């Protein structure tokens, strides 16, 4: 399964490594791809950092002067603190909801679906078969003011902000959860699938109640999947701006919306680069701390 490859991958230990007879062979194999990644990933990151230190008084037409303007960072970050906060907050909520929704689904597919397993797995990746922008636009229809969801919630007297769903925070988070749920389900599935069902039976034989069987056997054994899934959900969700743009208003804008508009509409490169670099640094620190604390260095 294509998307599964990206999840289960790192955990498998490499086959016994050959002591190379030809020392240059691995380097030759790595050269083209490695060069590509250096040129178009590493170098751009350096350029992004350089851009973030340009003189903010320059412009795209006249060119920017390199003035080592470290003040760009506090300036940009303090001006857009709410958007940063929202990015982290929305991404955290998205990850939480995806975990709550995704775990039962992954568990059901891995351990309860019998011969329907492969079909159900296809259904999880099925949303990828059509463009995510088109699907997010469909949420606009579903959550619209006279749509079914709003009428049902109104009939049940659920209080809605301003009586609507579209253009609210819950709509943005619902869209984010929808978009990134498969990224949570697939790694969870990959680790639950390896779980030997006899361990659960053994726990039952040893008088563990269903809750204890879950919290003390199933959950700890699926931890690598939980860690991989939360990272694969949190990182893209924190950088997303499509959902906030289509399903929210400027009051839901995340840091991605700011970066996007500063780069492509306003043309304020130094500030945009400073924000972008800050986002990247924040993600890397989070990933590093999280992976260290979770104690599963091998997820990657």
């Amino acid at each position: 399964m294509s998307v599964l490859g990206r999840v289960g991958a790192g955990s498998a230990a490499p086959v016994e490594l050959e002591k190379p007879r030809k020392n240059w062979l691995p380097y030759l194999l790595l050269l083209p791809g490695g060069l590509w990644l250096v040129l178009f990933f590493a170098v751009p990151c350096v350029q992004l950092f350089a851009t973030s230190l340009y003189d903010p008084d320059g412009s795209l037409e006249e060119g920017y002067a390199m003035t080592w303007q470290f003040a760009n960072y506090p300036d940009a970050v303090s001006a857009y603190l709410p958007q940063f906060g929202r990015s982290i907050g929305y991404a955290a909520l998205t990850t939480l909801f995806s975990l709550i929704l995704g775990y039962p689904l992954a568990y059901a597919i891995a351990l309860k679906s019998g011969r329907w397993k492969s079909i159900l797995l296809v259904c999880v990746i099925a949303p990828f078969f059509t463009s995510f922008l088109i699907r997010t636009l469909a949420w606009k229809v579903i959550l619209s003011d006279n749509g079914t969801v709003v009428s049902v919630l109104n009939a049940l007297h659920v209080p809605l902000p301003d009586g609507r769903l579209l253009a609210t925070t819950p709509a943005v988070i619902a869209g984010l959860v929808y978009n990134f749920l498969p990224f949570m389900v697939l790694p969870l599935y990959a680790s639950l699938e390896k779980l030997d069902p006899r361990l659960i039976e053994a726990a039952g034989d040893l008088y563990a109640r269903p809750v204890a069987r879950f919290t003390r056997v199933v959950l700890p054994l699926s931890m690598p999947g939980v860690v991989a899934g939360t990272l694969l959900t949190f990182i893209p969700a924190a950088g997303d701006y499509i959902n906030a743009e289509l399903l929210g208003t400027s009051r839901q804008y995340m840091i991605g919306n700011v970066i996007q508009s500063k780069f492509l509409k306003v043309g304020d490169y130094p500030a945009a680069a400073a924000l972008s670099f800050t986002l990247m640094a924040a993600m890397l620190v989070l990933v590093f701390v999280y992976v260290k604390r979770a104690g599963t260095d091998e997820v990657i």
Partner: protein
Amino acid sequence: MVHRLRRFAADHWVLAIGLIVLLYLFVPIGVVAVMSLREARTNAPYTLDNFTFTLDNWKHPFGVPGIQEAFLLSVTIALVATVVATILGTLMSFALARHSFRGRGATNALIFLPMATPEIVMGSSLLALFVASGVPLGFWTVVIAHIMFCLSFVVVTVKARLAGLDPRLREAAMDLYADERQTFLRVTLPLVMPGIVAAALLSFSLSFDDFIVTNFNSGTSVTFPMFVWGASQRGIPAQINVIGTAMFLISFLIVLIGQLPRLRRKAR
């Protein structure tokens, strides 16, 4: 009876929740399909009200100016990016899975980092590079970017397949007097092929569907996702939903047909 019902519920409640979650994943796809059958009217709000059924949109799926060009551009970009990324990535995964060498850790980090970087950072950093070095934005800058973010996924996918191979198969081939070339072409490569195909399919879908990175590096080129984005600001033609539905049905059918033998084998 009550007892049996309770037994059934106890056995199947997780499955039931799972199916409800699956439904959540499918509802928007259903809406896209329904909207593709809605009669197009100018300036009508993008909702399901005043629904008039029509097949016209399906008869003219490219009946909106620009949509065909955008679609073909996306297919071209995705094909080029897939071929290059699959070849480069497969070479890298062989090096990582089969050889020990200095700089493994650094290489692994270089491959992992793009996957841990939000797309908006990759897109904006490439834009910063292209602008600083005066490279004109367009078809090739998009292709370069797509190859870059597909590469890591190819490496991870193919490497997983390589790591799962039984090393004894190669040893057996060697014992049977196959030379290295024959072993590679007739044992290793066929065994790794499913991984390479999966990586290529993944690359194609990542590239075809990419909006964020493309938006930063496309200049005036309009890919299909960018066409959809532009349309979402002006008013969405039903043809977008036709293409979305058709893409979904075609890929779903292909994958389902691929899964059928497996289902039958298990049924026996």
